[in-house]
């Protein structure tokens, strides 16, 4: 089964708004959590990541929160912009360097 479960496959937010994307995981051994961004017909690129010894990391408008006891991590995007329109994939890494991805969430930022 899928080890990384991503809810809300499709979301729309108005420009300037705040958005939260969520991801749940099953494996206690995951030690690294990431969010990738993907434009249509392009390859995924890393947006932001956090290791398991940290519960929050901020990079400009993007913040990742990690809740290890709840096996949950989230991506917060503030001041949404049209160029944020993309598919966002959560990912987590366990032993053996395997990076497992969620199913992705399609975000649309409307003007």
């Amino acid at each position, binding site marked *: 089964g899928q080890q990384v479960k991503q809810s809300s496959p499709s979301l729309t937010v108005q420009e300037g708004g705040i958005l939260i994307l969520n991801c749940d995981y099953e494996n206690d051994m995951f030690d690294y959590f990431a969010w990738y961004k993907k434009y249509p017909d392009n*390859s995924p690129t890393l947006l932001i990541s956090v*290791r398991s010894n940290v519960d929050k990391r901020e990079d400009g408008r993007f913040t990742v929160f990690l809740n290890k006891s709840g096996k949950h991590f989230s991506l917060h995007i503030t001041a949404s912009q049209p160029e944020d329109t993309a598919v966002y994939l959560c990912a987590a890494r366990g032993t053996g*360097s*395997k*990076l*497992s991805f969620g199913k992705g969430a399609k975000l649309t930022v409307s003007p």
Partner: protein
Amino acid sequence: EAAVTQSPRNKVAVTGGKVTLSCNQTNNHNNMYWYRQDTGHGLRLIHYSYGAGSTEKGDIPDGYKASRPSQENFSLILELATPSQTSVYFCASGARQGATGQLYFGEGSKLTVL
């Protein structure tokens, strides 16, 4: 300059035919990965490798083989292609675990099996 390159970028194959997707990386990374992307499934790991000569099964290895002849090259082989293997395939490279977990992806290879 692209550090992970895939070939071919587009491929049409017939059912039962053999398909080889190739990947080359200039990042000097130990780890390489093959994923497929399908609507509603995100990215699913097929095979991965820790270095030259090593291949490991991912989450969906059935119907696929992999080969890592060198640090730079990692191939995905479909011995008997089926229509269910129609997909977009992404290769990625990454540093050894313990370092940054970031993966660097190639441009993708679109495979259609008729």
